[in-house]
């Protein structure tokens, strides 16, 4: 049985944010909604200080607390391990947000992409209004909306329901990698089948000691982190007492 998983190599991730932008474009996300994002930590004390990036997304947990708590099974697991969400069953209770230890589920407080419904033009007789731009480009919710997203979910999820990363299930069923993986210029995101011992993710998990976020909660995330970004070196010593 296929179990999709992602390995994130933190030695390769430079925190460029390409995955975040790619995800927003692929999934027609509106302002303030980021299915993929990154945690930025500042490590050390000035002047010995650096940033540490942890890319984030839905962890597609094996024991997903959002799935357990959803009253209508709007949040559910596919056989391949992907945690999906059905907006037609979502009652907007936001208990999944309460249960998710990773803060990666978003509720649509406003109409998604509502800025593109604006019919006001900036310069009359010269520029198009946002709504006209959508009409002229043939987009559904924005001028650059991706119609392929609409194959398994509404192109843009409705007002009053939650939404989250789906591991680009619409691409995976067509044999394509999730778009954040595709767009990463450093190949820091690696996608594959956890149940296939010959997959790249399985090999990486066997080679490096993987970490998972908030593992003590027993959620069994399917997103693994390996290595750590650190280009620096230091002079070997035993420290000092002073």
């Amino acid at each position: 049985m296929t179990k999709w998983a992602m390995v994130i190599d933190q030695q390769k991730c430079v925190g460029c944010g390409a995955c975040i932008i790619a995800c927003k474009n692929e999934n027609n996300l509106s302002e303030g909604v980021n299915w993929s994002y990154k945690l930025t930590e500042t490590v050390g004390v000035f002047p010995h200080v650096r940033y540490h990036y942890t890319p984030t997304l839905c962890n597609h947990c094996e024991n997903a607390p959002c799935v357990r708590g959803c009253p209508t099974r709007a949040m559910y697991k596919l056989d391949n391990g992907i945690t999906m969400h059905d907006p037609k069953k979502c009652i907007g209770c936001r208990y999944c947000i309460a249960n998710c230890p990773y803060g990666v589920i978003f509720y649509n407080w406003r109409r998604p992409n509502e800025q593109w419904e604006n019919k006001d033009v900036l310069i009359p007789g010269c520029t198009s209004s946002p709504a006209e731009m959508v009409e002229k480009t043939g987009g559904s919710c924005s001028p650059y909306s991706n119609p392929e997203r609409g194959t398994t979910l509404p192109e843009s999820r409705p007002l009053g329901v939650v939404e989250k990363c789906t591991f680009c299930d619409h691409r995976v069923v067509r044999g394509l990698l999730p778009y954040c993986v595709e767009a990463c210029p450093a190949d820091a995101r690696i996608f594959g089948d956890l149940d296939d011992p010959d997959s790249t993710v399985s090999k990486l998990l066997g080679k490096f000691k993987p970490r998972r976020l908030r593992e003590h909660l027993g959620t069994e995330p399917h997103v693994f982190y390996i290595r750590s970004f650190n280009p620096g070196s230091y002079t070997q010593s035993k420290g000092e007492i002073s």
Partner: protein
Amino acid sequence: MSTNKTFSIVWTALLAIGLILGLFTAGRIVTGGLGIFNTDNTVFWGLPMAGYLFFGLTAAGLTLLSSLPTVFGQKHLYPVAKRAAILALATLLTGLMCKGLDLGPFSTLVNTLALVYSPNFTSPIWWMAILYMFYFAFVTFKFLAMHRGNWHDRGGVATAVGALMLSFFSYLSLSVVFGTVEARLGFMGFTMGIYFLVTALASGLAALLLASVAGAMLGRGATETEASIRSDLSKYLGVALGASLVVFLLRILRAYASDVDQMAGFKYMTGTLSFGVELWVGLCIPILLLLIPTVRTTLGGQFVVALMALVGMFAGRYEQLLSGNVQPMGVQAEYIHGFSQYSPSLSEWGVILLALSLTLTIYTLGVRYLRLEAMPD
């Protein structure tokens, strides 16, 4: 014009204004969604949800009080039992309305049908929704049975026992909703369940005492028997508030004895206004006042402590919610530095105004037309 008539006109006008403003807010929510709230993906449950907890748990306390004479034979409480029953009905209705308005626009409310055709039996929210539906039905039937004078026939007792059991199980499911959120220790796990229990009783007692005092001030229920019951209710309220204070301190001790980062939200809330109101206005000062015999026996004293307890309990529901979500979770910390600076919008207050106005309207209509002082023969 008599004082009573003037009061009646002013009271009706206030209720009408509250209902109109509240219904206007409700209309905006149903048509446009929750964008008019100040809640966000960090503080995802705000003031309307606190309203749900406040009114819902007050209903649980009132259901217990209204069941004491019928189910447990506490006959000295007969004169206030029907009043407690209609208050339970009104607060439960408005609590459920707060939760409904917290779900979002009409398109989302339609999806609640999925509770029937796509149930998830592992979800505490599903159990809570179903149990509250039955609970509401039984509270309604129970009041109707009382109103028809069928307090002690088979149907009357069955609805009273049913409402009481369902109030316990609804309260239990609500406790499980918060108790099983392992990711958010600020909700205090099942300690919250104990706190819900004692504060539900306290807020139910305070609501019943306040209603009884208001009735006596307006010339209804000014008998010696009712004065004796109010004195008893004051004593019970003192005990319930004392128990609430113990669990309140337990929460503080648990938070400060822990080094877990997730308790930071609760610790942050200890410095906020809602925490202060809950502790001092809702617990400490009323307990101290209730130690004075005159306060327990005079209408003014009873009015003040009951009102203070209710205000404190409401602030407490708000504080309990924010303790669990004021601290950004996971990647949400990228959007908010430190703690969320959430303060409710006017629309969120509008939901509470609607709930309060509706509760008081139902009760006022009950007082005028439903003979709330009625007792079994």
